[in-house]
C-alpha cells in the first residue's frame, strides 16, 4: 500500500536514477530512421508515445546530442520511418546509442539492411513492423525536441500475420526499463510483456465496452434479465435525481442520493443482484 506521502521531488528524481526509472515505468521503444542532409539514412532508438488512433499518431523525443536526426526530423512534413525492434536486436540497440558523423550511416554499423518504401525513406528489413510517418508538429525543449508523427502506412512481416498475441508480445515491442552501471559501464535493460489478463465484461460494464452510456448499460442489463424493468426504471430515476442534485451542493438529499447510486452501481459491478434492491428508491 502506498503511504500517500509525495516525498520524492522532481529534483530528487533528477539525481536518483533508480527512482526515476521506477516512477517512469518501462516505456515502449522504437527505432527512428530518417535521411540526413547528405541523403544517408540515420537511425536511433527512442521511446514512443501513442497519441491517437484515428488518425494514428505518435510522439517521439530526440535529444540534442542526436543532431543528424534532429535536423532530419524537425521540419514539418519530414518523412520518417518508425520501426519496432525485437528481442533479437539488443546488440543493434546498443550500437544505435552512438550517433555517427554526417554521411556515415548507423544502419551499416548496426548490421541492418534496408528495404524500399513508398515515401522514399527506407524500411529496416530486420524489424517486423515499420511505420511510414510524416512529422506534423514539433515541440521544443532546451535539451530535446518532441516530434509528432502521423502514420501513413505500416508494413509487417507476413510470417507474423497469423501469430497469436502471446507470440507477438514474446518478440515485440521492447520496453525500455532502466540503465544500470555494471563494472563502471552503463547497461541498458529492456523487457517484453508476458502475462496477459482479460478485463471484466458485461454485465460488469456495458456490452460494447468503455465508450457507452449509463442508460445503455442499464438497458442491456434489463434486456439480459439481470435487472427487472422496475429496477431499470428505479436506477434511471435515481440517476436523474442525482443529475438534478449534482449542481446543488447544499441540496438536502444530495449525499444520500449519491450514496445510494454509488452503492447500486457497486452491486452491479460485483454482481450482487439481490442486494441491489436495498439501494433503489421506492418505486411508488
Amino acid at each position, binding site marked *: 500500500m502506498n503511504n500517500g506521502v509525495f516525498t520524492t521531488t522532481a529534483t530528487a528524481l533528477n539525481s536518483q536514477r533508480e527512482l526515476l526509472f521506477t516512477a517512469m515505468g518501462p516505456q*515502449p521503444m522504437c527505432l527512428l530512421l530518417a535521411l540526413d542532409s547528405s541523403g544517408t539514412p540515420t537511425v536511433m532508438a527512442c521511446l514512443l*508515445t501513442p497519441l491517437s*488512433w484515428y488518425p494514428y499518431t505518435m510522439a517521439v523525443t530526440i535529444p540534442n546530442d542526436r543532431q543528424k536526426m534532429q535536423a532530419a526530423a524537425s521540419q514539418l512534413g519530414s518523412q520518417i520511418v518508425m520501426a519496432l525492434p525485437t528481442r533479437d536486436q539488443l546488440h543493434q540497440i546498443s550500437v544505435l546509442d552512438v550517433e555517427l*558523423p554526417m554521411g556515415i550511416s548507423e544502419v551499416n554499423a548496426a548490421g541492418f539492411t534496408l528495404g524500399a518504401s513508398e515515401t522514399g525513406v527506407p524500411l529496416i528489413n530486420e524489424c517486423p513492423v515499420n511505420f511510414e510517418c510524416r512529422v506534423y508538429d514539433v515541440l521544443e525543449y532546451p535539451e530535446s525536441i518532441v516530434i509528432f508523427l502521423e502514420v501513413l502506412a505500416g508494413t509487417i512481416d507476413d510470417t507474423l500475420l497469423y501469430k497469436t498475441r502471446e507470440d507477438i508480445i514474446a518478440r515485440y515491442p521492447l520496453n525500455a526499463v532502466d540503465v544500470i552501471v555494471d563494472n563502471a559501464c552503463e547497461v541498458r535493460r*529492456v523487457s517484453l510483456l508476458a502475462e496477459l489478463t482479460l478485463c471484466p465484461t458485461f454485465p460488469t460494464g456495458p456490452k460494447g465496452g468503455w465508450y457507452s452510456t449509463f442508460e445503455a448499460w442499464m438497458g442491456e442489463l434489463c434486456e439480459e434479465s439481470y435487472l427487472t424493468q422496475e429496477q431499470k426504471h428505479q436506477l434511471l430515476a435515481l440517476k436523474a435525481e442525482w443529475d438534478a442534485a449534482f449542481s446543488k451542493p447544499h441540496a438536502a438529499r444530495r449525499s444520500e442520493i449519491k450514496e445510494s447510486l454509488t452503492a447500486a452501481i457497486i452491486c452491479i459491478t460485483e454482481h450482487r443482484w439481490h442486494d441491489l434492491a436495498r439501494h433503489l428508491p421506492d418505486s411508488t
Partner: protein
Amino acid sequence: MAKVRYTTEEMLARPSLPGIFDPTQIYFHFRPARPANLLVTRDPQSGEINVSAGTYGVLRTKPLTIALHIAKKSYDSLRNTKDIGTACVIALPGKDLVHPTWVSALPVPRGISEADIAKLTLMQASGSDIPGIAECPVNLQCRIEDRRDNFSHVVLILEVTSVSISNSFSGKSRSEAIAAGPTYEVDDQLNAWSGSVERLGVNGELLACPGFPVGPKIRSAGLRQWLLDLQHEKLIEPAEYDILIDMLDEWDQGGHRWSERKKLRIAVDQVLHHLFWSQWDEFRTIMSSRGKLVHREGGDET
C-alpha cells in the same frame, strides 16, 4: 519472408485474415502496448474527484514530463483538465488492480466517484488538493504544462512535480518490480455481443543490451569518447586510435573528390562495423592496410 503493407486507412479498418475470427488481430500487431494509468482530477464545478483509466508515455526526464492522450469522448477528464497549470495525479496500477482499473472507466454519472465504485482508497497529498490512489505503488503529482488538440484526442503534457513510491518496492529487484506493474493496455478481445474486452499485460523477462565495448562506457558519451574508451581498455592500440581519429577528421573535413570520399566512407563504415561487433581480426586487417597507406603517404611527403 515478405512484408505486407497496409495504408493507415486499411490498418484502422481492421483488416481480416482468412481463417482468423478475431478482426483485431492485425490491427493490434501494429499497435504497441502502452503503460496504463489512472488519472485523478477534480471536477471544477462540484469539487468531486474523478478517476479515469488511460495510457501514458514519457517525453523527457529532466524534469520528468509525460504525455496523456484523452479521447474526446472522455468528457469528465477533458473538462477537469482544460486549464494549464491545473494539478492532477497519475497513478500507476499494478497487476492486482486489473478489475478496479477497468471499473474506473465505466460510464458512471458525473460526480459519482469511480474510486468509490472501484473501491480504491484516495490518499490526501500534502501541498496538493488532488489525492493519489493508495493501492497504486506509484503516484505522480503533476501540473498541466500544455494541452494540444490532436484529432480524436486531446494531448496533455504533464510536468511531474513530486512522486510517491510505495515502500513495497524496497528490497525488490527490477525484475520483480516490473512483473508487478504497471499494467499495459495490450489489445481487445471480443465478447459475445461483439463488444471490446480490454486485455492488460505486465512485463516479464528483463533483458540486458550489451554494454561496453559495444558503444561507450557512458551510453551518451559519443563516438570519439567510445574510441578513447576502447584505447584505455587496450582493445585497440594507440596507433589504431590515431588512425581512426585521422579517418574521422578527414571525413569531417570533406574536400575530397567524390571517388576518394566514397572510398573513405566505405573504410569508415567497415571499421566501425567491425568495432561495434568486436570483430577484432577484421578490424586489424583494415587498420594494417590503412596504417601502411598512411605511412606510405607520409613517406611520400618527406
